[in-house]
């Protein structure tokens, strides 16, 4: 494909604001900035992890990308075939075409399937609503894909109801549903967080193998850095609607630059009793970004925060030296290589 910059998805200055409800008769002037000024480029064929705590806006970003919700402002451009489209303003036939190219896998395998539809109807739904193939062709396609996602023989799964399947099997069905239209881009919202460990690994392997086989680009939304390490080429860390750091996965894990990334990494429990983690020293807890003031979003919790951070706007996402590792912090170079030093949080 002859794309000028090789990006499949480009997000520019994306904003999503939700009004804070003020009562029935009042219109609110307060807004939650769920996603604010987000910039992200995703190359064709790569898998990017969007990592952060609950309430950081990662799921909102995912829904914006598949056009489940409309952005307040900003652009999402996506290459579909040979043309570049603006996701936020798709209508009619273009939107229909977009639905064929972009799919989503949801977190909860028990909630994401209509209990009254069979596995066949669930997987074939995109084909049906988009009028692809006739009934026989659809059945063959669904059966083929079922075997591909490890639900073989397909004949013993195809006419079952979701409640007859285990969580792991359902998530495989969800993967099949996303792949049936052979999309270019899949947003996977915590696809394995509800699964048990022994089943989870299988689904993770499956998703990786199929993404490679179908040449699908993925945005992998997760709160679990350990899972992101195995699933993603690059990781973007989100905090209060902003990406605070982005880079190659191993680079982020080994040399985190942003104090939040450092804290997040040192807070993850390690399945090794002899490993001694560093003490997390950021203060307080995640708040809601309601009408944020023009200063670093992380200032309140930051162990490095000073006068400069307080008086300047949220730092831009800039590259340090290599163009691949970007961080949004005024002071990262001063503390580079160091662990978080500062007063131990009392919370």
């Amino acid at each position: 494909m002859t794309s000028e910059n090789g990006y499949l998805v480009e997000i520019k200055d994306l904003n999503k604001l939700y009004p804070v409800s003020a009562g029935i008769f009042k219109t609110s002037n307060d807004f939650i900035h769920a996603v604010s000024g987000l910039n992200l480029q995703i190359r064709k064929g790569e898998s990017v992890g969007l990592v952060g705590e609950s309430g950081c806006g990662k799921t909102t970003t995912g829904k914006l990308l598949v056009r489940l919700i409309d952005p307040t402002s900003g652009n999402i451009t996506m290459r579909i075939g040979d043309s570049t489209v603006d996701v936020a303003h798709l209508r009619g036939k273009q939107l229909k075409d977009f639905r064929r190219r972009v799919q989503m896998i949801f977190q909860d395998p028990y909630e994401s399937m209509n209990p009254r539809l069979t596995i066949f109807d669930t997987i074939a739904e995109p084909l049906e609503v988009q009028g692809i193939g006739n009934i026989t062709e659809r059945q063959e396609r669904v059966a083929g894909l079922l075997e591909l996602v490890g639900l073989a023989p397909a004949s013993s799964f195809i006419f079952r109801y979701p409640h007859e399947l285990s969580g792991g099997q359902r998530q495989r069905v969800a993967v099949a549903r996303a792949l049936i239209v052979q999309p270019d881009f899949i947003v996977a919202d915590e696809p394995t967080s509800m699964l048990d460990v022994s089943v989870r690994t299988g689904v993770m392997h499956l998703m990786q193998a199929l993404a490679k086989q179908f040449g699908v680009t993925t945005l992998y939304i997760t709160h679990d850095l350990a899972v992101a390490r195995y699933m993603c080429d690059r990781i973007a860390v989100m905090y209060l609607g902003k990406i605070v750091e982005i880079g190659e996965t191993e680079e982020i894990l080994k040399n985190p630059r942003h104090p939040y990334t450092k804290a997040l990494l040192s807070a993850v429990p390690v399945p090794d009793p002899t490993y001694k983690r560093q003490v997390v020293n950021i203060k307080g807890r995640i708040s809601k970004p309601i009408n944020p003031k023009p200063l670093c979003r992380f200032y309140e919790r930051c162990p490095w925060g000073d006068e400069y951070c307080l008086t300047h706007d949220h730092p831009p996402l800039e590259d340090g030296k290599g163009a691949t590792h970007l961080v949004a912090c005024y002071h990262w170079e001063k503390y580079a290589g160091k662990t978080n030093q500062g007063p131990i949080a009392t919370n």
Partner: protein
Amino acid sequence: MVENVTSPDVIHGIEVKIGQVPLWRVRLQMLWISIKANLKLFFENPIGVIGLVIILFFFLMAIAHPILMRTVWPPAIYDPIRGFDLSILVHPSGPSLSHILGTDPFGRDVLSQLMYSTSSEFALGAIAALVTVFFATTIGAVSAYYGGWLDTIFMRFADLIIMTPFITLLIVLSTLFDVGMVELGIVIGLLGGFGGTTVIIKSQALTIKVRTYIEAARVAGGGHFHIIMRHIIPNLLPLAFLYMMFTVTSAIFSEAVLSFFGLLNIRMSWGLMINTTQYTGYLLSFDKWWLIFPASVSITLLCGAFYLVGRGIDEIVNPRLRKR
């Protein structure tokens, strides 16, 4: 917490050779399996079964009446509206071999009246229930899905109907218009379909609307119509079916009240039987019990039976009520 329990009413999927059996046949087969499974659950519950037996009893009565009229009951004597038994001197007469439930003050056979009325009670119930469910499900699904002003209009209208005294409104309507069984069924159906039942169905639809599979359907490319028809309404039907049963109860009851006041333009019904008893002055003469009891007991029994069946269905629809 019980973990990993396979639900007992597992509807076992069927294995098919893919592409060789037509899809509609597979669907029919699966529907049959699921009906069987649900019937099995229904019959495990005595409450529902008792209700069903009573309904069946009345249903047989309704079927038996025209047969009896053609075979053993001479129409001149046993016709529920124009019949008169000349061989008995004083009417109302008590139960005898020829008139098992006696005769009414006009010399008509009470049992024949009772059986004749049964079929119209069923028809009334069916019309009311179907009308209610059609409107309640459509309005409930649409106003839950779209929300906004559409929702506001329907819901405020529903409030208005709920606030209106049901029986009083029917009385007014029946004095203004000629209201028969069919008209009554439609009116009761509309009152339920735009009023109380809609609100209940809509609240259920709201819980379905926020489920992830609705989002999944949108990502799949499904339009509003597809989502409402494919995902919201099928998940409302069990509850709608339950409220059909309760509508039947309320329809039969309302008919009895209106007929008692003589406000309906119908020739014979259970309510009318009580009405006849009342205006001929036998309402409180308990020595002429056969005039008042057959109709009133039938009303109570049939209303109760549909309610019981509703309760039985409730336990299938809401697995939480089910005993493990």
